[in-house]
């Protein structure tokens, strides 16, 4: 009888200790999870901030102003542009003759 009691008592103690450690483990893991989730949220916010920054820095008005003023660039004109078709062959652009009487002019070829 006394032996059985001792056995049960030791089992009880063991279970109690296991309960305590597993609870502790659970909390530790939970805190890790929370931390990871918070990190995920922070990263997401950071990603959005970077996206926003990218758009702000790549604003067309900024690029336009920088290109015109600082780099002294000019818009491209078709006479200085070589148009390529997807196959790689240059697109024939009608040449010569003044514009202004387009109806009846040469039929355009090879537009994409």
């Amino acid at each position, binding site marked *: 009888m006394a032996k059985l009691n001792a056995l049960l008592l030791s089992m009880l103690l063991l279970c109690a200790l296991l309960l305590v450690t597993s609870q502790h483990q659970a909390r530790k893991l939970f805190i890790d999870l929370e931390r990871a989730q918070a990190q995920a949220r922070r990263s997401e916010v950071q990603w959005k901030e970077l*996206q926003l920054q990218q758009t702000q820095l790549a604003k*067309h008005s900024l690029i*336009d102003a920088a290109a015109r003023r600082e780099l002294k660039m000019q*818009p491209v004109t078709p006479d200085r542009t070589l148009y390529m078709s997807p196959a790689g062959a240059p697109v024939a*652009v009608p040449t010569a003759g003044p*514009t*202004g009487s387009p109806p009846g002019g040469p039929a*355009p070829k*090879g*537009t994409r």
Partner: protein
Amino acid sequence: MARPVKLSSNALLKTKLPAWRSRFALGVLAFGFLALSARAVYLQAWTTDYLQRQGAVRVERTLEVPATRGKIVDRTGAVLATSLPAKAVWAIPDDVDAPREQLVQLAKLLEMDRQELERKLAEDKSFVYVKRQVDAAVAERIAALGIPGIHLRNEYKRHYPEGEATAHVVGFTNVEDVGQEGFELSQQQRLAGKPGSRRVVRDNLGRVIEQKGSGIEPRDGQDLSLSIDTRIQYLTSSALRDTVREHRARAGAAVVVDVRTGEVLALSNWPTYNPNNRQQLTGAQLRNRVLTDTFEPGSTMKPFTAALALELGKVKPTSTIDTAPGRLTIGPHTIHDAHTYGTLTVEQIVQKSSNVGTVKMAQQLQPQQMWELYTSLGFGQPPHLGFPGAVAGRVRPHRNWKPIEQATMSYGHGISVSLIQLARAYSVFARDGELIPLTMLRADEPAPGVSVLRPETARAVRRMLEMAAGPQGTAPQAQIAGYRVAGKTGTAHKQENGGYVNKYIASFVGFAPASNPRVIVAVMIDEPGGGQHYGGQVAAPAFARIAGDALRALKVAPDAPFTTLIVPADPVKESV
């Protein structure tokens, strides 16, 4: 030191005590235990729920899990609107107790007047918002000041990186993150997230240590991809701004539509506003003139009259009509031409924009036929764009048309349309007779069109429109280097208090390249005041700049030789 005495021989034990005393002590102890167990049973069995609830109140908390509002992006994925976390700074005025220099620091961080801050903190309330939507970095420094009674609350701030250029399309939200204008308003349901919640246990330091149950997951708002191309949008809005300034106009609007898909590539208004800073916002700035304003289109309607006459076989492109002497009297009214042309072909009527010629064509048509064409082109009906405030315009029922009304309608007076309706209607010429549905959301597939005119009719009118935008037409300034363009000018008197006044709306609607149209561009300039008011002088150059930039941005191959453009010194004036 006393000698130890054996217990059994202790003198005290020899005293005989009365038996009731021990029984009494036993009884008291037994009663004590009984009372304790009764209490235990009472707590465990009868009041458990209450006690557990009380325990939960002390350690458990329901936390709201915020959901973020969806982004708005353009067709290339560039961000047009996004939400970032920010803080609301609020105060319990009675609790605020800080030395003056700390308040000065706070005011500086909040970019506020010290007096204003002090006035807010002096209010007789238990809760005051000091400032909302403070950037997270600034909020951190405010928290570091540690002023008692000043608190922070999480919220979101909406950022619009493209600013003025896309303001009218994207719109904006208020501080509560609810859409107020534009797509922010119309797509509120889709963009708004649904916050979730979860039940957690906190320890004495306030850390979350356990979650109870699974909680409700937050649902983030969906992202929205618009059909707008920010590059074309920027080019459009800067061209429009320059045009309005150059001609000292009251306002302007422009829209660019992709002919293949019906997507709106750019939609721009001037004056505009910065959605990131809306302190001095006026109604004129907010107004989306492309969609919510209707105007009498004037000559831009003439091609439709010509198209209907061709479609019904009343005329051929080369049929001649006598427009001399540049006047036509219908009842008590007289219709004028700006110049006297004599005999013109149908092509030349559109090219020179002759009112008399157009009316003579319209007189061969039934009111019902004209009304049916206008209706099938979408005039008089609000466009299905998913955009707030898009108006229907006005086409009166054909049964009440008087002959003079039918005549004026044929050249665009007595009918009101919005710029976007006009741009859409021109798709029948750009697409061989097919009318396309417009969309402002990104669509990858070509739009299925509805056939309104025969392809031959559409091609014939396209040729006329190309002539109108040529050196002999009303809009030689609409020409673009390297591309053939087709389009029509419009110059209409404005109506005020029921009568026409000497204020104008100059417009131009056209498409390019004419050989295989890719974009439709419609430009409208309200009250140009710089001495020039004709559509060909005011709106056509803006069209040329926008269409040329858009075609280059879309990498469309030229279909015309690149030579010096012929722009006559004194182009043909259209009839107003």
